[in-house]
């Protein structure tokens, strides 16, 4: 039952995404814009870019995710699908988890794949690339899960605007600190395992708790 519900939801989301292919590229395009603007603002000098490359890429992914957050449940809230989710015989938190996974796969995953290219634009030292991709692979799902709670809290509002950013920021800060911190540690030639393990631990914890919190928030918003 749960697997078939997940399959149906994934198929529907994938079809919707395919019909509006342009939207799927938005986060990656936004990240590219951030990277270009940063590079130009810093004068395009390789020496200056090298040092900030990893934090800028982390920040670009975080902001791109923040931008896409509003679409996580908005469409379903407006066309009434979210009410059907609540009536469905499978747990609401499971559907939230599947949707969050799809959202991550369509917004953060393209960015993750583009990271080596964006890194090259910023003269990212090759040695830092595996740690950066690893920290993003662990960190962006965590950001999506925390973002799902925020998106669920604001789903009842017609326009959430700056509030989403204000709510997400305090939850995002630890992820950013450990994510960017792991690359900074690697850049100093030290072992980056500890911050990556902390990110992984956070991901495991959020994987269990965030869908439950988001489901509770959706119930509050819709009843």
């Amino acid at each position, binding site marked *: 039952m749960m697997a078939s519900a997940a399959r149906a939801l994934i198929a529907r989301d994938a079809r919707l995404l395919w019909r509006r292919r342009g939207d799927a590229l938005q986060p990656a395009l936004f990240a590219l814009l951030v990277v270009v603007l940063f590079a130009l603002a810093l004068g395009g000098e390789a020496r200056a870019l090298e040092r900030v490359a990893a934090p800028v890429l982390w920040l670009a992914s975080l902001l791109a995710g923040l931008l896409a957050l509003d679409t996580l449940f908005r469409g379903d809230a407006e066309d009434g699908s979210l009410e059907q989710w609540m009536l469905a015989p499978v747990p609401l938190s499971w559907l939230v988890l599947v949707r969050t996974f799809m959202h991550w796969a369509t917004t953060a995953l393209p960015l993750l794949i583009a990271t080596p290219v964006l890194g090259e634009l910023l003269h990212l030292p090759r040695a830092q690339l595996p740690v950066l991709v690893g920290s993003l692979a662990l960190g962006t799902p965590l950001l999506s899960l925390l973002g799902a709670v925020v998106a669920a809290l604001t789903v009842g509002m017609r326009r*959430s605007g700056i*509030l989403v950013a204000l709510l997400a920021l*305090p939850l995002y800060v630890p992820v950013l600190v450990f994510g960017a911190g792991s690359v900074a540690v690697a850049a100093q030639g030290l072992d980056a395992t500890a911050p990556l393990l902390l990110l992984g631990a956070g991901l495991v914890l959020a994987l269990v708790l965030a869908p439950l919190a988001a489901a509770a928030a959706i119930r509050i918003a819709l009843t």
Partner: protein
Amino acid sequence: MHPLVRWFHQLGSPPYFDRFAARWTPVAYIAGILVMAYGVWAALFQVPADYQQGDSFRILYIHVPAAWMSLFVFGLMAFYSAIALVWRIKLCEILAMACAPIGAAFTLITLATGSIWGKPMWGTWWDWDPRLTTELILLFLYLGVIGLYNAIEDRRSAARAAGLLAIVGVALLPVIRYSVVWWNSLHQGQTISLFGKSHMDASMLPPLFAMIVATKLWFIGSLLARARADNLRREAGKDWVLRLARGTEASR
């Protein structure tokens, strides 16, 4: 029914709470001001100057109680929110949301006094140190709770949504508390402990305890006043509020 349990149930009724808050708000405020006056006087004139920091250490008598309150109020807000979410007690929603602005103010005081002290002592207004950063995040969380509460139209679901955010944010409290233990921090470690020996001279402690009690009393007064206002706003249009507004209710 046990009188204490009955009193607890009665307090949940809006008119009863209104009378209760109206009676106890001035008491808590006056007691708070008196204890605070003693605390400030003792902190400024009775306590000897520190052998290293001179007189500038005296700001801790505001900084430390405010910092403790910033954490305590958040915990209390989450506690009220949990009760409100589980048992749907309207008064707990009101109390939880009344906590948020007070806690935000205490957090702001903590950050401001800390940075005023930091300029002469550390030579900088701000440092991206774990304790300072987590306290700043706490301020953002408070602002998020206030913002969410004000953004949703229906007061009850607004309070529940903001309360859920407060419960999620509780995860931050232990991080702030132990940030000076877990990381290398510019902020000093724990010097005061309620149980066991403090790393502070005994002559410096009494005003600190006075200030801690005073901030609690002030908080109670402020909480009751804010909750009473919100309670009246929500109940506006009910008979007892109308009578209260016209002043026809018998004097208390």
